[in-house]
């Protein structure tokens, strides 16, 4: 299984963020480099495992020399290899001085050359996924590397939109990995005979396979829906993104467990490929917020909407 990290980080994380936040010249320069095969990524993960722009572990302040960054972003896809790293930095003064964004926004987005940071690769439980912690301490960047194509009051929303695109990419990959795992299970239990029959003819096996299929179909439908809300600029996008990542996470939980179980002893070996796929799905569950984090988002949004509907109907 090839290492997809560079592709995923560049196309589903960096490119949407630059498209959402950059000015025309920045988009042309940075996305042009991507189109020519350059790699890039985004950095906002906190050590606690939060992935919100408001809680980015990196902050910034403006000096005469340029924008000074401080802090370490964790779990950055391709963080030690990417040509460019887009970092979301808080402007709340925690990097020294008072609130320091040039235009009064709560956050700023900078694009830093990969050569300017200190990156430490993480030994990941999915050996085909490339992750690194990226330290920005003392990095100074020029104004033309601050993405300033969007009104400061809209910047958080623009970052949110890019984040939703990133979630879609992760959810889609999780669905794909889970589908592959299920396909392998179906092949295996159709061939493996015990008691003179294929083990796939036993209901205990069939029903587990169907539950996996349903969980994957559910997650796939929501991942497609999220992609459609992005394409159509539909205002259900933030809800759909949280649903897609949550459903993909729920699917991987079931698929990891039941596919190893249905492979039996051979599934417990390094030599059978099933572990590669479920490791990938599990690894993606653990970044950008897990199923429970996204259920919390969904629950809050739907509860508020339900209350509005019910009080509206009562009037």
């Amino acid at each position, binding site marked *: 299984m090839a290492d997809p990290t560079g592709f995923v980080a560049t196309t589903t994380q960096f490119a949407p963020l630059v498209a959402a936040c950059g000015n025309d010249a920045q988009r042309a320069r940075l996305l042009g480099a991507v189109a020519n095969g350059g790699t890039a990524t985004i950095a906002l993960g906190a050590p606690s495992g939060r992935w919100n722009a408001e809680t980015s572990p990196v902050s910034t302040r403006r000096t005469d020399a340029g924008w000074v960054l401080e802090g370490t972003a964790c779990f950055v896809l391709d963080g030690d290899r990417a040509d460019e790293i887009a970092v979301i930095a808080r402007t709340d003064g925690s990097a020294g001085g008072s609130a320091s964004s040039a235009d009064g926004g709560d956050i700023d987005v900078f694009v830093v050359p990969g050569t300017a940071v200190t990156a430490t690769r993480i030994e990941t439980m999915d050996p085909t996924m490339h992750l690194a912690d990226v330290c920005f301490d003392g990095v100074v960047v020029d104004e033309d590397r601050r993405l300033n194509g969007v009104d400061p009051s809209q910047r958080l929303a623009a970052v949110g939109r890019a984040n939703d695109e990133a979630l879609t990419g992760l959810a889609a990959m999780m669905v794909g990995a889970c589908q592959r795992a299920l396909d392998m299970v*179906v092949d295996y*239990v*159709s061939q493996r005979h015990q008691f003179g*029959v*294929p083990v*796939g*003819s036993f*209901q205990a*096996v*069939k*029903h587990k*396979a*169907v*539950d996996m*299929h*349903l969980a994957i*179909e*559910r*997650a796939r*439908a*929501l991942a*497609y*829906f999220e992609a*459609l*809300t992005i*394409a*159509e600029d*539909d205002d259900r996008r933030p809800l*759909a993104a949280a*649903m897609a990542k*949550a*459903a993909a996470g*729920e699917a991987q939980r079931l698929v990891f467990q039941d596919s190893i179980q249905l492979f039996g002893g051979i599934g417990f070996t390094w030599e059978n490929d099933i572990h590669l796929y479920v490791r990938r799905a599990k690894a993606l569950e653990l970044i950008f917020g897990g199923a*429970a984090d*996204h*259920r*919390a*988002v*969904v*629950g*809050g949004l*739907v*509860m508020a*909407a*339900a*209350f509005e*509907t*019910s*009080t509206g*109907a009562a009037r």
Partner: protein
Amino acid sequence: MKLTFDDAIESVRAEFSAWLDANLPTAQMAAQRPRSTADVPAWSRAWQQTMFDAGWLVPGNPPEFGGRNASLLEQFVVLEEMGRRNIAPSMNPQALGIIAPSILSFGTPEQRQRWAVPILRAEMTAALGMSEPNAGSDLASLRTTAVRDGDDFVLNGQKVWTSGAHDADVILTFVRTDPDAPKHKGISVLLVPTDTPGVERRPFGSIISPDDLDFNEVFFDDARVPAENLLGPLNGGWGVANGSLGHERAMLWLEYSQRLDDFLVSFGRAAHDADMADDARLLDWYASVAIDAQAMTLLGYRTLAKTRRGVESTEQSILKMFGSEAIQNASVAAVEQLGPLALDQTRLVGGYNHMQMDAYNAGWFERYLRSFAGTIAGGTSEIQRNIVAERVLGLPR
């Protein structure tokens, strides 16, 4: 791909919606409530006839059968609009959803006029006689016999779960007409009027209450019906059964999807009223229900799109299983989250709605109990899993 219907389709919805505004019975008119799924009060008969005459009852049918030759998507938005407003087109749903379409599909022109039209116009009520004490999931093992005698068939045996039979005028009855043939090839279908001598009906209470009388046992003791009451080919009843349940399953997902949406609104309201709307544990499972509801709608739309393109859809079993289990999971969680508030039987889930079957005007615990109808009736969730495993995943039998 798009997230909306075309304007032409939406205009049909708007036309229907305006028609509903002008024609819906009021709560006062609908005061008399049905006591079973074949007990249709006078106001509801009149309502169903109004829908039939306007061509909205079964929009896909031609006008003589209560429709307007509507396209699939036009039919869909009409159903969606009725669901959104919580309107039941008929208080005899198995007749409208299964029995009438079976007669239209398999009947002669005479049978369509004699049985299907009066059923669609609610001048005649009907019940479905399929299951027997020893033929549930394994329907093809049914043993009620019908023996040809001159111009008649003579029936002997017993049906069960025959919902509404004690209030029905006719029972669509699946019988064994060739005991020597393989079990799927000796079944036929007869329309049996319930006033036929030798037909005895015994309603019995459901788990809801001893007074919730909808289920019936029906006994046939040398009951004679004319041979002309045979629906479809002699010994071709298995094909009718599959067609009938196909009708039952085709748009079932929409009902589940709307019930999940209703649930989210009703429970959201209840949680606010109980000052529990910020509780993290509650929001966690509530989110799962919301995700189920959205996924159900999306998977249903996908099935609809496939059907429209003429692609055979294998998803009915998945949607039936998923929808019924999602409602069940939501219902039991609601009972647990509300705690003692769910003890009050009179506390309605979503308020009273006079255009619905009374089963929909129920409390939280009753909703949970009723959810088992979804996971048991019309093919249990276990049977659906077997079907999906074999037909969709291709696992060995």
